[in-house]
């Protein structure tokens, strides 16, 4: 098990809370999440739209647009130091250098008026203090590394001259140019078509091995988690509801939401007319239920679920779940003695 080995821990997030203060009220987009990342491993963060995955990733680099957003509490320990106490200048030397990020939209994430090479070289010049020529050469090398044919020519081209897959490769080259210790990939393949998706994931995996980078992969695609991740955190309405090994989640899911997600995947080995769905919708961030945020949609919900929020607690050597079903209180609340169906 990779968990709980402090020496290997490169990033540790404790009780992170990111809130948005708007006219409609306070949205607790990230509401007290904790997870850790070991050197060289891949952590998947899954969840549907609005679950707080992207806000989590932006919070790690302190890139939350403020106002209206604000990191309201918690800590982000990177190599033992809390990023939330660092100055903006110190953060700048970490961004793109020690912790990099790839975004969901390769189409709009590159600046349309600068060449691909320039955008990569810029990061290299900034963090590695190289000259213009050396930085450019290194940018071309990076393009070659991410599998772009004739990189010398491509480096001079602007984003509109490149395809979506190529742009995402440029983003990866840019993110990895300074050999970061942590790479945050926020849905890196969502905007790409399926064949390119596989190539990009493969590329991230290969480069991760070569550079020894730890990766946080944000996705809503469970297939991607299975293919790429060591561990996975399932997010729902700003909280982590299940935190476990990636393989475990497919063979032995615990939280009713995780089970619902897995059941809603189309399966090749079964004749399905209609896909299973999770009834109801995600609660509004401005109007969260008092208890467990999944309770209104949960088939197992009891009165205790509506009254208090369950903590994320270990129920095995490598699994943590936030659900009343796995607590001693559940048995008491469960008077009907009906067998728990999972």
């Amino acid at each position, binding site marked *: 098990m990779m968990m709980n080995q402090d020496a290997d821990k490169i990033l540790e997030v404790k009780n992170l809370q990111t809130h948005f203060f708007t006219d409609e009220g306070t949205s607790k987009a990230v509401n007290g999440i904790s997870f850790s990342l070991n050197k060289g491993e891949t952590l998947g963060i899954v969840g549907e739209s609005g679950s707080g995955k992207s806000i989590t990733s932006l919070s790690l680099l302190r890139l939350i647009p403020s106002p209206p957003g604000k990191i309201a509490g918690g800590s982000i320990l990177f190599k033992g130091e809390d990023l939330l106490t660092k100055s903006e200048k110190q953060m*700048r*030397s970490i961004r793109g250098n020690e912790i990099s990020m790839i*975004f969901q939209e390769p189409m709009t994430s590159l*600046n349309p008026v600068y060449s691909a090479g320039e955008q990569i070289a810029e990061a290299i010049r900034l963090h590695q203090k190289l000259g213009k020529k050396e930085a450019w050469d290194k940018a071309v090398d990076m393009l070659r590394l991410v599998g772009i044919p004739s990189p010398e020519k491509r480096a001079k081209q602007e984003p509109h001259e490149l395809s979506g897959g190529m742009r995402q490769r440029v983003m990866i080259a840019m993110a990895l140019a300074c050999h970061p210790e942590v790479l945050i990939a926020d849905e890196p393949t969502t905007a790409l078509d399926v064949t390119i998706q596989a190539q990009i994931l493969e590329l991230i995996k290969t480069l991760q091995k070569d550079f020894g980078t730890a990766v946080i992969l944000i996705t809503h695609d469970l297939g991607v988690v299975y293919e790429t991740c060591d561990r996975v955190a399932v997010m729902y309405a700003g909280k982590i509801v299940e935190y476990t090994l990636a393989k475990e989640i497919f063979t032995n899911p615990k939280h009713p939401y995780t089970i619902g997600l897995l059941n809603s995947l189309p399966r090749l080995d079964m004749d399905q007319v209609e896909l299973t769905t999770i009834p109801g919708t995600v609660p509004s961030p401005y109007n969260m239920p008092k208890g467990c945020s999944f309770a209104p949609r949960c088939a197992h919900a009891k009165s205790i679920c509506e009254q208090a929020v369950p903590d994320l607690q270990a129920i095995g050597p490598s699994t943590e779940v936030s659900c009343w079903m796995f607590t001693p209180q559940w048995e008491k609340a469960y008077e009907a003695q009906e067998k728990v169906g999972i």
Partner: protein
Amino acid sequence: MFVFIIRRVLQTIPVLLGVSLVVFLIMQMVPGDPATLLAGEGATKETIESLRHELGLDRPILYQYVDYVLHAVQGDFGESLRSSRPVLDEIMVRLPITLELALASIFITVVLGMIAGIISATKQYSAADISIMIVALLGISLPSFWLGLMLIYFFSVNLHLFPVSGWGTFSHMILPAITLGAGGAAIVARMTRSSMLEVVRQDYIRTARAKGLKEYIIIYKHGLKNALIPVITVVGLQFGALLGGTVLTESVFAINGLGRLIVDAIRTRDLPMVQGGVLIASVIFVFMNLAVDVLYRYFNKRIDLN
């Protein structure tokens, strides 16, 4: 790019022909006969007739027009009816003054407008932003002739900082340039602000932040170049308004520029002078538009000029 410029230059030919035709026809339609005006009061009918024949005004309109165009392409815009000097010579004396005024105003429009817009956008809803936007609103709303008179009143008459009128030195230039450039600067400031605000919300700005770049590099390198694309369009359009504005400004500050020359020529029905002046102004306008297109391409390579 070269092919594009050549093609655009060729495209100006029909535009200029059209302009010359319209001006020619309008001058035909306005009441008042140049020959009568030229002959002066009390001239006999015969004198006027012979003058009209001498000027070629008794020939069919189409013939007059074709004749005019054929001469114009050789740089011969005819002679001024008033001074009897070649139109082109008169224009060439006045043109540099107007161009100086126009360039000084454009400088104010672009530099002042952009700086104000960037400050406004980067400090949205701050006191600076609100003040700039109020001044910009005034700049757009105040008519230039009124602004010019007020500037003269405060800075020239009361404070004696700048000359009241005329042209020649740098200090002559300041008040007219502000008068003429203020409206444009206000528009450019508002445009830069909104464009900049839009750009800083784009994904690539977030990418630039994630790279660890300093805020001013994000704004001036990654933001500004993108934000300038719509601003250039506005500046290009402003230049047209500016050329028109020179007429008023030159009158207020008693500057002997092209604008005033054209106005005087219209008043005295100095047909060749009006045509020549308007045509030269059109040429300048057309080439400014071409310059804007080329700049556009420089700032945004996604635009395919061909």
